[in-house]
């Protein structure tokens, strides 16, 4: 009896046991002002820093370059890798503990909205503007404007992205566009769709369940990550908005007439021309189906589909091509992005060394080398100079990739309204899509979602 009760007791204390405590204390002071004098890469020589990373083509490309960083700076980098499925759980726990075990870490932009308000992240803007800490030719403005804006916010409800601190430096990123089986399209004499209605028709025509082929793959799993790639991109292109600011309160508008209409079409598209087990589909499933020749198109990150076209990586390698996807009714190519960025733990005791690492890894020289030598590629570099230089030279066998990128980059940034309850409200959005897919009425379900999300985002503020 005690054993059984004890087992339950132990599980009920899971959070406490895994180190999530009300620790952390007051946010540490920004360390940039302590760095004075002239810039020198060797200012922190002899230091060892710990970096938390997840296995990813960006990390794979940089791993062999770390020795060069050590040679340049005298700083040793101890990189801990945690699988992506567990990465943010581990990162949350580390940051919440306030222990400062990791000096720098990989993060996505949406996570800033949660990690920033408690003071877990160092504002990097003072570091960038301190000439004693940052080399003169770092050229922060070379990083695409949409990316710089997406990693900056003042944490006030209603404030747009780009206001407030610079909480992370974009390291690699992806735009959400269509990748398609060009060989099959050429064989049939067809072209990618230019409008959303054309895309629906095209995907439906390409679906042949009897031969285990379907028109289009996009994510459908019960996760916030279902919303941000293709769905949010096309949602925005169709003129829909997630929230609007009324006074000092956000109002969820994913139930507006145009949003309901779009959502209904999107879910119908999943049902008629998507993968059968759509509600379990994450990006590896989508891209694997494209590579296997089962899916004719994928609406997801360009960097996720890119490796499928590298010889030896998939059955359809060499047969794939890229297209911006359907334009909105007014011809816009608004595109949502994801960026893996590098950030600094505000509880770090080795902030200068951590900043030198972030500066080096996001700099022109190291990123160029990563593009040239990365085993899994480095799509997409965050610097315009690297994209236009080294990266373009790798795109010869990737038809449409460059044109697609150039078409959307000017209108690519985060299309979500920044808010602190992002993960809960966006996961609930994915649950709503699944409910509609299972037969619930789109209007009723989205009304319920919008009411719940309006309450959630304003309660948090």
């Amino acid at each position, binding site marked *: *009896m005690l054993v*059984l*009760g*004890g*087992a*339950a*007791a*132990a*599980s*009920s*204390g*899971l*959070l*406490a*046991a895994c180190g*999530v*405590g*009300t620790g*952390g204390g007051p946010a540490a002071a920004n360390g940039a002002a302590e760095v004075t004098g002239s810039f020198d890469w060797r200012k922190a020589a002899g230091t060892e820093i710990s970096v938390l990373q997840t296995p990813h083509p960006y990390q794979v490309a940089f791993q062999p370059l770390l020795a060069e960083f050590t040679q340049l700076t005298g700083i040793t980098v101890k990189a801990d890798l945690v699988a992506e499925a567990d990465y943010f*759980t581990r990162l*949350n726990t580390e940051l*919440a503990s306030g222990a400062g075990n990791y000096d720098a870490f990989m993060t996505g932009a949406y996570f800033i909205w*949660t*990690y920033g*308000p*408690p*003071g877990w992240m160092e504002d990097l803007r003072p570091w960038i503007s301190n000439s004693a800490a940052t080399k003169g030719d770092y050229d922060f403005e070379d990083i695409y404007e949409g990316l710089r804006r997406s990693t900056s916010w003042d944490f006030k409800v209603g404030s747009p992205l780009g206001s407030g601190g610079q909480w992370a430096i974009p390291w690699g990123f992806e735009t959400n566009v269509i990748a398609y089986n060009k060989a099959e399209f050429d064989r049939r004499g067809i072209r990618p769709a230019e409008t959303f209605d054309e895309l629906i028709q095209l995907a439906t025509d390409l679906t042949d*369940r*009897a031969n*285990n082929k379907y028109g289009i793959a996009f994510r459908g*799993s*019960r*996760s*916030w990550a279902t919303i941000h790639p293709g769905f949010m991109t096309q949602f925005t292109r169709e003129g829909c908005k997630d929230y609007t600011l009324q006074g000092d309160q956000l109002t969820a508008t994913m139930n507006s007439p145009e949003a309901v209409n779009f959502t209904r079409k999107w879910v119908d598209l999943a049902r008629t021309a998507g*993968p*059968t*087990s759509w*509600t*379990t589909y994450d990006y590896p499933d989508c891209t694997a*189906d494209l590579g*296997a020749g*089962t899916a004719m198109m994928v609406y997801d990150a360009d960097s996720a589909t890119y490796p499928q076209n590298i010889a030896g990586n998939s059955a359809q390698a060499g047969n794939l091509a890229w297209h911006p996807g359907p334009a909105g009714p007014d011809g816009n190519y608004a595109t949502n992005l994801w960026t893996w960025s590098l950030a600094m733990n505000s509880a770090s005791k080795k902030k200068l060394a951590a900043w030198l690492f972030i500066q080096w890894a996001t700099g022109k020289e190291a990123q160029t080398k990563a593009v040239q030598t990365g085993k899994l590629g480095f799509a997409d570099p965050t610097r315009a100079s690297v994209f236009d230089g080294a990266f373009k030279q790798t795109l010869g066998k990737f038809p449409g990739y460059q044109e697609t990128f150039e078409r959307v980059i000017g209108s690519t940034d985060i299309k979500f309204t920044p808010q*602190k*309850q992002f*993960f*809960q409200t966006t*996961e609930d959005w994915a*649950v709503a899509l*699944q*409910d509609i*897919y*299972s*037969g*619930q009425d789109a209007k009723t379900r989205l009304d319920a979602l919008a009411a719940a999300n309006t309450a959630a985002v304003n309660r*948090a503020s």
Partner: protein
Amino acid sequence: MTTTAPPRPSGTGTPPRAPRPVPGWRRGLRPYLLSIPAVLIIVGILYPFVLGAYYAFLNYAAVVPRPVFVGLTNFVEVLSDPVFWASVRVTAIYAVTATVVETVLGVGIALLLNRSSLVGRIFERVLILPLMIAPVIAGVIWGLMFNPQFGVLNHVLGLGSTFDWLGEGRALWSVVLVDVWIFTPFVAILVLAGIRSLPKEPFEASAVDGASWFYMFRRLMLPMMWPYILVAVIFRFMDSLKVFDHVYVLTAGGPGDATRTLQIGAYQNSIVNLNYSQGSTYMFLLWAIVFLTARYLVSVLGKAQRRAAGSEE
């Protein structure tokens, strides 16, 4: 030179040497030293439990780094949330179905294996293989097998690429199926061990009296096996109430909330949404459910044991 060895104490004639007296302080310390391991274990369990329970009374979340006491607010919010009650329903259906199916199958397999044969002996060894696989790995394996596009199940069963094992209406039964695959051997092995420990005499006497196999099963074997079956039921039911791993891997609680068990709800609140207090409230309520159920089932087990021993009618 001769030496004379001192006489060895032997036989009953020599009085035993008196033990050295233990100092009083050491005698006083002994109970405390002996209880250290138990205290460590209790602290190891109780500290996170009490802290987790304490969080349930705060408004602690990542975006609220300096939480305050909010009394029963979290409990009121959770208990008035239809999603929580949907999770309770899913958890209850999952636990009852998995336990019943595993028990019936496990007992049946144990009875078959009890008939000594070469096939039985081989099966006995093969049967434990699913138990050797971590449930999270089993989830990954079954996820691949369930895949309509390339999974082996649809291919072998001729279901084509349109039958979705993890779709609405089927997902819950599919995750129960995986649980049954993993844990039926556990029930079978436990019950088989029980059957083999039963006394032979009552069965031999019944056979001499001409009793049929079914009569002996119903009147002798089943009542004597009952405590073993109940132990298996208790273990499986408690585990099923707390199920997380393979369900999360297969469906993450979806489609919609179709497989969102209480543990998945707690995980999503705490780890995904970073709302630690709400996650702790889920866990605290789950603990209460598990504790009360365990208390009831253990009392049933006690009765069954006394009945099997003939000390209670």
